[in-house]
């Protein structure tokens, strides 16, 4: 039987996305997958032993000047402005290239070769009793989608449950990260900004037709900001993670909350159980 894929996302960074995904993965003994490739930080808490590192390459153009007539077709074909024609050469901005292939297609003289370029890497390992995967995009690269696709490929057929820590925001990389998930957890904070970003995330998962619930992190007196909205929209608030100074301290030291605090462990056990019931339905 195939395992469930649960994507954890939020409208922006720093809402507790990693806290929720890493602790939940540990409780459930799921595979933890960090798709937040621009700033993966799950490893700080899960402290995995890395067993394998795999480079992720994309293909970028390289001009063969024995054949190139400087006709300029390729520069016009590139939607990303990655090619510029000068008087004597074609300037390739490889970090703007999205590897779309349009330039190879269009060149009338077969003067463009594809060469591989490393844009980042995937790491696979173990954190005690759970599997760990994360990806990292090199700084300045155009798109992390190729890395996310490779990660998704690795977990495609596993029979274990998977927790996907997705990138913040609502960009292409988020869409690719959460695509095909069985359930989405939207993590938010009870602040006006939190609500604003939550709405964006809700819009996205609705558009993608993915079932979802909300988790309030740093829960406290202001929860009604989120709860009122969820009530209006008939959205299920599955769990609340209270705000405590001790949690912030544990977090800043890179400790998993469930390992250090029974109360929070209980919160996550509950969350996991309710979530499984929902998915089972």
């Amino acid at each position, binding site marked *: 039987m195939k395992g469930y894929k649960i994507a954890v996302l939020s409208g922006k960074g720093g809402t507790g996305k990693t806290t929720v995904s890493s602790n939940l993965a540990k409780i459930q003994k799921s595979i933890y997958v960090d798709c937040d490739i621009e700033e993966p930080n799950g490893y700080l808490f899960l402290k995995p032993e890395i067993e394998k590192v795999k480079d992720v390459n994309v293909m970028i153009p390289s001009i063969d000047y024995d054949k190139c007539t400087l006709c300029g077709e390729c*520069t016009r074909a*590139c*939607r*990303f*402005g*990655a090619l*510029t*024609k*000068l*008087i004597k*050469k074609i*300037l390739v*901005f490889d*970090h*703007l290239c999205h590897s779309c292939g349009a330039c190879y297609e269009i060149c009338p003289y077969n003067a463009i070769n594809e060469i591989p370029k490393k844009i980042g890497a995937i790491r696979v390992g173990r954190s005690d009793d759970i599997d760990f995967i994360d990806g990292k995009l*090199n*700084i*300045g*690269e*155009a798109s992390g989608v190729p890395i996310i696709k490779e990660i998704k490929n690795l977990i495609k057929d596993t029979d274990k449950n998977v927790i996907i820590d997705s990138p913040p925001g609502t960009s292409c990389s988020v869409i690719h990260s959460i695509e095909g998930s069985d359930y989405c957890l939207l993590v938010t904070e009870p602040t006006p900004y939190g609500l604003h970003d939550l709405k964006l995330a809700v819009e996205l998962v609705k558009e993608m037709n993915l079932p979802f619930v909300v988790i309030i992190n740093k829960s406290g007196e202001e929860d009604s900001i989120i709860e009122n909205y969820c009530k209006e929209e008939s959205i299920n608030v599955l769990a609340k993670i209270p705000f405590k100074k001790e949690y912030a301290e544990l977090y800043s030291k890179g400790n998993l909350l469930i390992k250090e605090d029974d109360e929070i462990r209980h919160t996550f056990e509950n969350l996991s159980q309710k979530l499984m019931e929902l998915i089972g339905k």
Partner: protein
Amino acid sequence: MKIAISSEGDNLNSNVNSRFGRARYFIVVDTESMNYKAIGKTAASSAGGAGTKAAQLLLDEGVDSIISSNVGPNALEVFQAAGISVYKSINDTIEKNVEEFKKGTLEKIELPTNNGHHGEH
């Protein structure tokens, strides 16, 4: 000499637009005759690379110098490779900028030394 200025509008009385890659128009002026033509930017897409696309447009016009501000590192690299000088615009009309250019008072923009890898999303 042929110079291009990033502009808000399509004539010499228009104000400069300080954002090179996002300018709606470029005014290409012949500094001797003051004849000019406006290029409405066709490549104003959001797919990224707006700076290099605008740079290509101006290369194809055969301009010798650019007057603008906030020229991104990629576009600057294009201009440098093509031997085109880039000058910093003053917040005034196109005509006034051309005058200042002729007097030689505009500041030249050089390629930043840390021109490594800048994402343009």
